[in-house]
């Protein structure tokens, strides 16, 4: 069933490409849209859609295995939030971009031992994750870059 729908998807992609519609794609948090196709390719992901929402756009892609990654892009072309859900946690270095080191340092400071959802709340960066094997979710955003018509809780 999956294989057949992939074939259908590739035909669709061919058709849409021929129509010359813009390509939805992925960029890392804080990045711009110029290198987005390379990032999507890195995750071997499939583009799903670009959805205008007020003063920003949401670009959705789907990685192998089914995890959906949603990138929130400002009118200036900057990615100010990323959210994901699905059976696998996406490669964080790829989606956090230049914020990955800050995220990594925050992980290292977590105390005490014990597995739990993540809540990183720092000046300029919020990362929150949750879920369990087979069903993960999370989001990362740059609070200072949120547009006025988007509440933080709506990023999902």
């Amino acid at each position, binding site marked *: *069933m999956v294989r057949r729908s992939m074939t*259908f998807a590739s035909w669709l992609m061919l058709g849409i490409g021929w129509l010359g519609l813009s390509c939805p794609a992925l960029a890392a948090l804080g990045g711009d849209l110029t290198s987005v196709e390379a990032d999507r390719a890195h995750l071997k992901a499939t583009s799903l859609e670009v959805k205008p929402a007020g003063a920003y756009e949401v670009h959705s892609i789907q990685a192998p295995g089914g995890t959906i990654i949603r990138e929130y892009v400002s009118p200036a072309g900057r990615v100010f939030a990323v959210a994901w859900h699905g059976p696998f946690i996406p*490669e964080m270095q790829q989606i956090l971009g230049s914020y990955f080191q800050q995220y990594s340092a925050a*992980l290292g*400071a*977590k105390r*005490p*031992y014990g597995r739990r959802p993540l809540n990183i709340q720092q000046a300029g960066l919020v990362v929150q994750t949750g*879920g369990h*094997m087979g069903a993960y979710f999370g989001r990362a955003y740059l609070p200072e870059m949120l547009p006025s018509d988007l509440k933080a809780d709506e990023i999902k």
Partner: protein
Amino acid sequence: MRKKLWASILFGSLGLVVGCGGGSSSSSNPSPPNSSPANVLAITIDGGPTATQSGGAIYTNGVFATATICAPGSNSNCAKVDHLLVDTGSMGLRVLQSAMSSLKLPAVNASNGSAAFNCVSFVDGSFLWGPVQGATVTLGGETASNVPIQVISSSTTNIPTSCSGNNLAHDENTQTLLGANGILGVGLEPTDCGSICSSGATPPDAYYTCSSLPCSPAFISEANQVANPVVMFSKDNNGVIVELPKLSGSAASVNGSLIFGIGTESNNQLSSSATVFTLVCDSFTTIFENQTYVVDPQTCTGGSFIDSGSNGLFFPDVNNSIPVCSSKTPIGDLSSFYCPPSGLSLSATNEDPNNTSTTKKTNFTVDNALNLFTASSSDAAFSTLGGLNPPNYGFDWGVPFFYGVNVYSAIDGQPMPSGLPAGPWWAY
């Protein structure tokens, strides 16, 4: 059930495509059965293997058990490994190579015929990497043969960047980093992945082969995937019951039992006081602060779950009324936890997503985590530890939920006695 759902999600989403392009590593015989029934495995919340070391850190609300792991067909080439984290939120036995270094186990292959390696990531940002190998696994008095397990590699050589994210600091491949000697995943599914790792267009970043470097993702049959060892027992293989005693406040340690099987023996019958919740996407519904957290069957997000591998009660606070702990406390970054000025008495109601008339209310208390850890710095078990789950998502009912409540976890696809629904489900 989950596998079918994920398949339908994949199918449904593709329709939308508009894109362009251990402890003791000595060899020993398996433990002789003790006086307790064969389907009982002792569990303990004792701070973990590092707690007794000098300057050792305590694993808060970590539920631990011991397994005997043997080479297939041998009862002398074995390692008895203590302090495996009992996790009803994951599937599969994952053991530090360094905790069973004397034991040599056979490789388990991916579909391309090469030895399989497994990468598993956890919500806390950590990951585990290592080969899939076959073992005979004895838990209490029950034995499973030829169980694919993950041996967590001591070496970080050849870990692909799609697993490590180029940051090997998140590889919890030592006892000090993991806070345990391994993870014993006895959750709702028979394997750690299912059909999305066995076939499709592109294999996900979960199983790899390394016959040429760098290691690359590969498909693997469900029979060869890292397995929930419970489903491979010859009996008592349809679920588990976690039994931990009631706890008020905190304690240095708490002992309990992991019972194998549901309705298969005299000691694992469904209690008349237990309520059975059937599930959607291995989740149920929670009603809290006038919000209903119900799972979306399309995305499998938004609902709640019970998880002995989560060390607190994690839930969203839509009113932002409960302060979160500081990231800069004298004992480290506690920002995953709540720090209310005084103890909060709260309640939430869980509901069956397939039958909204099946509900059960849970009262719980959340205390200030910094005060708890400071005032009870030598304790390992905390009944009032709570923290934040991201908004829009439901409850992660971790270890505090289990104190004084027997939690039944019925596994997807396993035989159930008459009168009980097909798994997966929870009851308590």
